[in-house]
């Protein structure tokens, strides 16, 4: 590939510049992969070295430390207590007691069951005294997986705390040796609202994210490697167990009778998801910008009124407006009624049910209705940005004889694109996962008969995210398949983000704003 110097690059036409950048991006992939490989290698090297250092430090602390320090290896916080840092010492000790208690009572069981996800499933047990059979539930795979992961979290936290406890001793010894005083419990508390304030502030939000976002995501990723579904629910019907990469094979390469395969369905839905995301993002973007420019034009009256009317769609909860609009286009809805009254049609149009051309009517309609939902947001954002464009740019352009279209192409559009680049990306990925609009408007309809053998009655307007929902709530409730779809969605979103971030001109530098 030909490399251009900066000067040569500037001389290229727009299209060639774009092509060049794209080529550069793909040409850089091998090197990026190599760098990533080196990076990962370095990471592991550093990790190994770091662990080695930690062990060396642990050993040194033990050898050089006094008896208080040595006892701390077994009884956490002992050193702190013995040196008068009561509060710290008690916290460490309490944590150790809780941890040991938990591991004996529950944690040990969860961890030991994790490799098998439960040994004895539910079944009928003969009761010799009453001479009856009773149904008994035993291990619970779901809980084993969940609490197993949680226990691993807990063990990691314990190791970290234990290490911090040892470090404390070494630091305390050094401080005492240099003749200074140790921090008292009061100082510790004070530092929580002062130089350690960020820990106080982040404690609650991060705990919430850890338990209600990170843990479920890890759990669901793991589910993709099991056979967890409606009939293998892990407790009442039967246990579920590890499957390795079997589910990914089913989704990506398996071929059933008559050439049916999940991969074909997945590809079909993915294509529509990308088309939808593209149109939903860019129609809103350009039309919203257009409306904003109209409202902000000099000499337009009652600007506030126009804005307020548009903002109504943001204010009114989406489920009301979307469900209502969806019913407006129903076969016996207002739109058909109006068209019939006007005599423009003589038979009601089935907007949501027509499967002609892969459900083209429904597909176009969701994009159009999404414009109705989306323009107000873009109008607000564009208004804010348009006001920031220096007016003298336009003035000098006018003096040079540029017409309004040229002004738009050469000033407004580049400025907007530069500033809203990252926003466009989040919009695009957000639209890919735009559950509400699709589900409330069509519920995925019209049904795609060819693809519907796959879990969840697939329709032509289904996005990957609604398909995922349908799989989990469908008859078989194939959670493992939903997890695989979820992971694939993540991969698609991550790849798109990576590409766009690398081609985008406005690579944000956070500190620039401050």
């Amino acid at each position, binding site marked *: 590939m030909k490399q251009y110097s900066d000067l040569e690059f500037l001389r290229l036409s727009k299209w060639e510049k774009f092509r060049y950048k794209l080529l550069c991006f793909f040409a850089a992939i091998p090197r990026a992969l190599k760098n990533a490989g080196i990076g990962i290698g370095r990471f592991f090297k550093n990790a190994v070295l770091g662990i080695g250092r930690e062990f060396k430090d642990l050993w040194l602390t033990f050898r050089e430390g006094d008896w208080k320090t040595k006892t701390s290896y077994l009884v956490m916080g002992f050193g702190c207590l013995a040196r008068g840092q009561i509060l710290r010492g008690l916290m460490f000790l309490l944590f150790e007691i809780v941890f040991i208690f938990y591991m004996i009572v529950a944690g040990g069981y969860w961890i030991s069951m994790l490799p098998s996800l439960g040994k004895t499933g539910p079944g009928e047990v003969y009761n010799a005294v009453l001479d009856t059979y009773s149904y008994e539930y035993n291990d619970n795979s779901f809980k084993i997986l*969940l609490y197993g992961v949680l226990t691993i979290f807990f063990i990691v936290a314990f190791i970290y705390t234990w290490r911090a406890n040892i470090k404390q001793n070494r630091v305390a010894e050094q401080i005492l040796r240099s003749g200074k005083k140790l921090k008292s419990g009061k100082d510790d508390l004070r530092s929580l*609202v*002062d*130089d350690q*304030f960020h820990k106080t502030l*982040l404690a609650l*939000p991060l705990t*919430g*994210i850890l*338990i*209600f*976002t990170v843990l*479920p995501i890890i*759990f*669901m990723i793991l589910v993709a490697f099991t056979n967890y579904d409606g009939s293998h629910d892990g407790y009442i019907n039967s246990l579920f167990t590890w499957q390795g990469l079997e589910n990914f094979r089913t989704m990506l390469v398996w071929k059933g009778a008559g050439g049916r395969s999940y991969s074909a369905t997945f590809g079909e839905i993915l294509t529509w998801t990308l088309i939808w995301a593209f149109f939903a993002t860019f129609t809103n973007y350009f039309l919203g910008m257009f409306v904003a420019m109209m*409202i902000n034009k000099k*000499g*337009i*009256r009652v600007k506030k*009124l*126009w804005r*307020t*009317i*548009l*903002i*109504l769609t*943001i*204010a*009114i*909860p989406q*489920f*009301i407006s979307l*469900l*209502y609009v969806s*019913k*407006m286009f129903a076969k*016996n809805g*207002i739109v*058909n009624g109006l068209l019939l*009254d006007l005599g423009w049609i003589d038979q009601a149009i089935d907007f949501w049910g027509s499967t002609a051309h892969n459900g083209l009517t429904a597909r176009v309609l969701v994009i159009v209705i999404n414009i*109705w939902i989306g323009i107000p*947001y873009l109008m*607000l*954002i564009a*208004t*804010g*940005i348009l006001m920031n464009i220096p007016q003298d740019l336009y003035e000098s352009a006018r003096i040079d004889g540029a017409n309004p279209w040229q002004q738009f192409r050469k000033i407004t559009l580049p400025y907007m694109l530069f500033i*809203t680049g990252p926003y466009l990306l989040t919009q695009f*990925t957000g639209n890919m*996962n735009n559950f*509400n609009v699709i589900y409330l408007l069509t519920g995925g309809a019209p049904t795609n008969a060819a693809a519907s053998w796959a879990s969840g009655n697939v329709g032509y307007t289904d996005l990957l*995210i609604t398909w995922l*929902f349908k799989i*989990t709530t469908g008859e078989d409730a194939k959670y493992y398949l939903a997890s695989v779809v*979820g992971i694939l969605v*993540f991969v698609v979103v991550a790849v798109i983000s990576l590409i766009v971030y690398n081609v985008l001109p406005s690579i*944000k530098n*956070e500190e620039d*704003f*401050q």
Partner: protein
Amino acid sequence: MNEKRHMGIKASRALSNTIIHILLVIISIIWLIPFVCILLQSFRVESTWQVGYVIPQQWGLDNYAAIFKSDFTHWYLNTFIIALVNAVLQTVIVLCMSYTLSRFRFKIRGALMRFMLILGMFPGMLTMIILYRVLKDLGMTEANAVPGLILVYVASSGMGYYVSKGFFDTIPKSLDEAARVDGATRFQVLTKIILPLAKPIVIYTILTAFMAPWGDFVFARYISFGNPFGMNVAVGMYNWLNKDMINSCYTMFCAGGVIVALPVTILFMCLQRYYVEGVTGGAVKG
């Protein structure tokens, strides 16, 4: 000659402004039609199913009377409680998170932000199954769905720190430093200096946190699991439009829609200024 050309420009500007005015009127009509229709149909009493005309033949308040006799009151109260509690707690969480990430430079900050960015790329839908089971074990599903929903909304709200972090980034750091030199603790800097300046973004956060529960549909449906006492308005009213009920509940849906939308819309319109500020700031700063 010069005068004439000037007049020409003026005339063409007047023409283009007239065209734009007409366009804006058309746009406004398109944007208002669904809301006008829903309002009109909520007063229709001659039939309860979908019809092809907009203006009722007989007017009345029957639909409003009917919804207050149904489970709607439960749903409304549920949603209102969720929205209120969520507005308070979520604001606290989001402000803690965004302020810290904007102001402090600690060791894991960069890694934390990257981690959350990656986390955000997973479809949240996926976590529903497990959250349902966990909440069920805690006894927070079906009839008790309200505390469960609040818990999940609040706990995962820390991820949405971007907009307010962008705002905090615009408050000059020199203010903090000056106060620190004068002997203020970090806590005092936050409460005495930053928070008063951050009023717009605080109101924006409260407003969005209050409005979100009114529209949450899928998760709320999963958690309430068909129990009418645990539903929010979105879940409950969605059922009114399914195949079996639409013929008897369509106009009720319209009336319910009006009752739900009115207070939220009025609140939103009053605080519009702050919302606009938040949205525009957030988009620019990412």
